[in-house]
């Protein structure tokens, strides 16, 4: 699975990249510091985008809403320090909404074979959730 990391903070991208390393299915294909730069990376057709919300220029929410218009929109996981954007984020049907600092055990890349597992109780989970611990692979 090709993943694109979009966050204006370089260390936040670095941490995400490190957290993703344990997941063998995932290849981080690129990073972007703003929606504008990320737009260009879309040509490489990422399957999943980790997207920050508050960024210079276009916000993650606005960009995600535009991504929905594409023929094959990539899956989106929002990563933000702001719980209050969750409702607005819902509009662009993200796979998940992760609060920074991101806990390695909680976030999850959605693997294709586990779409719609039984909902686990997580207050901010907006989509299907699987977990790294135990059953990844």
């Amino acid at each position, binding site marked *: 699975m090709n993943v694109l990391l979009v966050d204006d903070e370089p260390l936040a991208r670095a941490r995400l990249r490190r957290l993703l390393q344990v997941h063998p299915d995932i290849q981080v294909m690129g990073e972007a510091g703003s929606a504008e730069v990320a737009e260009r990376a879309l040509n490489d057709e990422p399957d999943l985008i980790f997207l920050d919300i508050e960024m210079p220029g276009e916000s993650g929410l606005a960009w995600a809403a535009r991504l929905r218009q594409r023929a094959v929109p990539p899956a989106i996981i929002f990563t933000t*320090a702001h719980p209050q954007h969750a409702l607005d984020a819902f509009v662009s049907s993200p796979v998940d909404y992760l609060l920074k600092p*991101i806990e390695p055990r909680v976030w999850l890349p959605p693997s294709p074979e586990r779409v719609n597992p039984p909902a686990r109780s997580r207050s901010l989970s907006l989509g299907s959730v699987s977990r790294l611990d135990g059953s990844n692979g």
Partner: protein
Amino acid sequence: MSFADLPPRAHPHTPPRNAALPAFCTPRVLLITLLLGLGVALLLAIAPGVAEDRWVRLGTTAWFVAWVVLITTGVLCGLQKPLCRLSLPWLLGGVMSILLAATGLISVLAYQSLTQLGWNPFESQTEFLLHNQAIALVVGGMGIWIFSLHWSKTRRVTAQTKAELDALHARIRPHFLFNSLNTVAALIETDPKAAEAAVLDLASVFRAALHAGDVSTLSDEIALSQRYLALEQWRLGERLVVAWVLPITPLPPIAMPILSLQPLMENAVRYAAERSPTPCTIRIECVLGKSAVSLLIENPLIDAAKLPVAGGNGISLQNIRDRLTLMFGDRASLRAGEIEGQYRVKLVLPLDGHGGVA
């Protein structure tokens, strides 16, 4: 254009410029003022050297004082709004004039009616009037003096409490707190030493927020600003460029309110660096003059259309200004404005004094 320093219309909750006058329209204040007036009447009645019966004197004096108090309070209540727009010296003068006018009016009325009722005064109406005016001047002066002491203390406590709350609020703003913690989490693996430094920077910024009422020094404030900017530097990477221009000579030991410099950096970070996709330079210059120290903070104007909503989450320039005034009177100043595409804040502190706060 300025952030955190918008004109008053942008702050619907800003109290009138001079909220020094207590609410004279409340029954509580009226009762307290009446009781104080009756205390004065009691003093006048028990003062030695009074020829007439003390109970009679207490009665007439109390009656007299009660009317003066009622009229003065009534007029102050009615004129509360226009009075509050005056500066403090004019306000005090105005209150005193109202008291003297009320005393004069009641004196004349009392003299006329009492002499018609058969009272045999020892003095002419003019003397009676002047004596009463003198008493009103002394008692009113003492009242005003005590009140202004009380008021300046209240104002200081209010400004400090507000600064403290604002500072804490800005610190627990998710954008700052959780992003900073995320930074630390990112650094722990790659650069544990840097992670440690970042945690210590975070601690010092929080510590300052918890003591926003305290007095700091110029060098401590600069150190705090540097630690704050170091923290933001980790977060924003190359997008934040900080240029310090500090004098070569050691900084003078000037006392200043804590958190009067760091919030200016925070504004620059929030409204310029965070919004800029390209490197954004925040320039801080400290200039030592003969009688004053100037601190200039400059940042480019970014995305002017997305101006912050009034007040924001930070400490507003007005609050910093209030605390500077409490400490230095009008010898310190804080100005902000737009010059050639740059937003510039200038903070001037006097060199001669260590402020009014011990």
